[in-house]
């Protein structure tokens, strides 16, 4: 049986958010009705940056509310989109008169609700736009809803957050966000499934000696199983397709995100990052910046994702700009 710290499965998210806000009073305020987080010290005279999505991906997005990143975060239930009203209210609370940019991971429910929220905001006379994050290379197929959004969302929030702080207008911010997204791809591998709060069994069983290749962040199986192997053999299977898909040339610079999916130790993630660097060096790509840790999780899934983000001078400058949020501060 899977044991978790839990009271009622239906209250996991709201209880955690209450605790979260109490833990970070200098950064965030929690409005339980209808359910959103805003900065403790609201920003003035800037485009409001708002993101959200299902819970279960902590620290995303709540952990990125604060100076230099998000103005508001809108959490749904575990793995379920927030509602359009939540998004509208969060956006109105964060709005300073210069419009709202929604950073949305590409999932049907999220896209639908954020698009509706945009219409609701328009009715209130508030301009908004969406940057759709769709970095997951494993779902890059001709048909269907398109690539899923995963860890690249952190880069979008960091880079657009910094630009918003500098005063960029809504159109410029949206264009910047789309540029970051266009230059971002991610591949993930799971070593063990996580368990939904209150479920006693993990969401799938993985036979000995196999890994789930190209997994998403909702605990679901991937299309493919591959052989478990040492890091030095697994990581190239993640990195090479990314370099290829982004058509990264020699001398190009990237931001690397090695992201734990929940239950994977830092010890392992840094070992993975070491391999990523080795492979990038072989490809002549410069790992200009890196973020290694568990930032976009899938409950307590064991595994990791590798994200490469093409980075020009401006993107690097914005990446380096200060941020002060619960999960990312520099």
């Amino acid at each position, binding site marked *: 049986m899977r044991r978790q710290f839990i009271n009622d499965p239906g209250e996991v998210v709201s209880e955690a958010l209450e605790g979260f806000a109490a833990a970070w009073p200098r950064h965030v305020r929690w409005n339980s009705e*209808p359910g959103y987080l805003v900065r403790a010290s609201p920003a003035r005279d800037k485009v409001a940056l708002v993101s959200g999505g299902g819970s279960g991906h902590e620290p995303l997005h709540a952990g990125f509310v604060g100076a230099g990143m998000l103005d508001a975060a809108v959490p*749904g*239930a575990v793995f*379920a*989109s927030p*509602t*359009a*009203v*939540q998004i*509208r209210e969060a956006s109105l609370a964060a709005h300073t008169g210069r419009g709202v940019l929604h950073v949305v991971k590409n999932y*049907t*429910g999220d896209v*639908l*609700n954020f*698009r*509706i929220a945009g*219409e*609701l905001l328009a009715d209130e006379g508030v301009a908004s736009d969406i940057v759709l994050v769709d970095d997951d290379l494993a779902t890059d197929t001709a048909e269907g809803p398109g690539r899923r959004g995963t860890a690249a969302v952190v880069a979008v929030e960091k880079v657009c957050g910094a630009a918003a702080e500098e005063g960029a207008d809504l159109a410029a911010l949206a264009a910047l966000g789309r540029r970051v997204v266009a230059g971002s791809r991610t591949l993930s591998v799971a070593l063990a499934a996580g368990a939904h709060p209150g479920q006693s069994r993990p969401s799938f069983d993985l036979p000995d000696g196999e890994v789930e290749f190209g997994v998403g962040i909702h605990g679901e199986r991937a299309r493919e199983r591959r052989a478990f192997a040492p890091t030095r053999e697994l990581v190239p299977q993640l990195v090479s397709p990314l370099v290829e898909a982004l058509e990264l040339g020699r001398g190009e610079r990237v931001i690397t995100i090695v992201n734990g999916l929940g239950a994977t130790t830092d010890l392992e993630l840094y070992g993975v990052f070491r391999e990523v660097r080795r492979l990038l060096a072989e490809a002549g790509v410069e790992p200009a910046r890196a973020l290694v840790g568990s930032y976009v999780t899938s409950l307590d899934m064991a595994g990791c994702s590798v994200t490469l983000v093409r980075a020009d001078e401006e993107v690097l400058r914005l990446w380096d700009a200060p941020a002060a949020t619960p999960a990312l501060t520099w």
Partner: protein
Amino acid sequence: MADHLSTARVQRWVHGFTDAVEERGEYLTDLDRRSGDGDFGTNMTTALRRARRALAEADTRAGAGSAFQVLGETFLGHSGGTSGPLFGMWFRDFGKVGAGSGAFSLPMLAEASANGWATVTRLGSARVGDRTMVDAIAPASRALDEAAEAGSPLAEALEAAAAAAHEGAEGTSGLLGRRGRTSYVGEAALGSPDPGAVTIALFYRAAREALDA
């Protein structure tokens, strides 16, 4: 018989619709089980019940649209799933058209339907024949449009819309899904209608009955 739906009748419409959906909750869920993930009836009745509580407290003096505004806000604020927000926007378009007026006239109903259809299409990209609620919305909207153009009495117009929606909904039984979860199910869904479309038919039927009551 009235040639408009007053604020009070709109209340009856909404309650009649809620009753109809609640009665068929299991059936609708079963339909979604055949073509989706089996939560449609539950999602719908939960949201409608919440709306009913909100309606009891709402200020109806805001006009004929106010009940729909409450419905819209409730669905947009509390319903998960795909159909929840789409129904929310659907109701919202009825709310907008009715806002400030004391009653819905036929042209207003035709306008609200057309707007709702446009909204659902803009958001969900479903066209007629994709096996969604649009397969009931489209014929009903057209029926109202034609009736309005012809200057038909409201009762006749709503009867035509309800019948068209019903027919459209039944017709989804023979369609392969191309939007939403049913698109993953393929031929397995053939033989039973789309729950969203069935619900739209109940919506127009309730309008027709609210006129009688």
